[in-house]
């Protein structure tokens, strides 16, 4: 258990999409990660509290209802305040309202401090590949 990389996952904000996060839980676990799944309607503080206790390597934020931009704002700053300066932050799903060019969306979320940004319909394998690269495992 100690050697596995540890991830905190969950659906942020007032979002109750409960299915996708279970799929991610299985996919990440099967790929050899130690997954702590916070479920739906997760606040920024809950991600940070969980990541602190389990000493997580990454926080994987899901958002499907279009309000991701509002919900994610300030998460990196709060992580820094909490002593999680080195933690990997990913975000994915339908993270913004409407059809916006993905490169613009990606740039906005990267500016907010996310290491990787994934658009709608990204297969879990792609995210897992990125995790392996970023965490060196």
């Amino acid at each position, binding site marked *: *258990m*100690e050697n596995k990389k*540890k991830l*905190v996952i969950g659906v942020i904000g*007032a*979002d*109750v999409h409960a299915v996708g996060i279970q799929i991610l839980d299985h996919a990440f676990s099967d790929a050899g990660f*130690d997954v*702590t799944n916070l*479920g*739906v*309607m997760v606040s920024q503080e*809950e991600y940070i*509290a*969980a990541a*602190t*206790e*389990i*000493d997580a390597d990454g926080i994987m934020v899901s958002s499907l*209802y*279009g*309000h991701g931009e509002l919900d994610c704002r300030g998460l990196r700053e709060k992580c820094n305040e909490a002593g999680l300066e080195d933690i990997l932050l990913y975000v994915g799903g339908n993270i913004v309202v409407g059809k916006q060019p993905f490169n613009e969306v990606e740039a906005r979320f990267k500016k907010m401090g996310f290491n990787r940004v994934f658009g709608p319909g990204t297969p879990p394998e792609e995210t897992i590949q990125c995790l392996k690269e970023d965490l060196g495992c």
Partner: protein
Amino acid sequence: MKQVLLIDFGSTYTKVTAADLETREILGTAASYTTVETDINEGLEKALAKLFDKTGEIDFDARFACSSAAGGLKMISCGLVPELTAEAAKQASLGAGAKVMKVYSYQLTEGDREEIEALKPDIFLLTGGTDGGNKNNIIANAKMLAASKGDFPILLAGNRNAADECRRILEEAGKKVIVTENVMPRFNELNIGPAQSKIREIFLERIISAKGLSEASQLISGIMMPTPAAVLTAMELLSKGTESQSGWGDLIGVDVGGATTDVYSMSYGEPNGVNTVIKGLPEPYAKRTVEGDIGMRYSAQGIADAAGIPVIARLAGLSVEMTEKLLKQISEKTDTLPETEELAALDFALASQAVKIGMTRHAGTIEKVYTPIGETYLQEGKDLRNAEKVIITGGSLIHAERVKEIGANALYDVTQMQSLKPVKAEIIVDEKYILSAMGLLAQHAPDVALDIMKKELVTHGIAE
């Protein structure tokens, strides 16, 4: 084993209860002042003499005792994140019957170390990190404790991967260390049972003699535990029943004392409605909370601060000036009895608000959230709306007038719809003050203890 003596060494009174296991009844109860400063047996002998005046001489087959004398079991607990391991550590300590003097989270500072030295706990519970999780914090805290003065034992119940190093650091500094399972082995998984049994062991091995209770233990055949742990045991038995007898199901217990108010709930407190998402740490079935600022004498001002003087005055039917004057009087002279009409009215108001505040802080909350796909509820803590019994215990309430009205303050209130308190419940009073005694008896003869409680606890009717 036929006739059993059950002793509760309280901070003020030593209470004795004689029970007959064959007829399954209470033979008598009596109380005298606790004499822990001189010889604890003096108070016990006096209480026994009073008991024998009522019952005649009894040759007891066994004597069991619990104690909250000499300050009770004083603990400090420490975790990493306040809502997670620090909360789990606090739950573990409270459930073991401890008086939790302080809860620390994150890294202990030099100032904290000095505070710990001054507080002189009986046990320090050190936790932090899930198994395989954060190690740095608990190791830093072990180093800080290693540098502290004081010979209190340290119970380690944190990240198992940091336990060896923490133990080494503390033992090298000459500290007594006991290692047990993590209070939160995985994220949001509460595992407080192992820490609680270790607390009980340490209490038996070390604390009893340190508190001058060991002279008494020569007379006593068995188990000593902190009094709140005995009360918790009794309530759990009453709720769950035994193999041969059913219990009362979900129930609440309220004990309003002079300095603190204890609230107990026996319930999983799971959500009742659909579309409810639970937040926060899972709740233990047998949960105890203690309000240090809510009590009838030492903490009377705390009740007034929390409820507001006008509320107390209105409930008591007194003027605000009179209420303030009397409050000052009882806070200074804490042995004041409600001998005048005004004092009795004030006590009624204080007790009502103590029950209300204690219960509100204990019960879970629910919040309606509008999401893009409709209304959803967020629940934190226990949903106790379906608990059907509220048991009132504690010296200051069991003989009070209008105790049903006082107890009804534990119920659901339309002005606080977010607070998940019982909607309709029977108010039951522990008039003979037997709960701690029955908790002790429950260890040896649970069926008898349950029978006696069902017989001796007095219903005051259903309130809603």
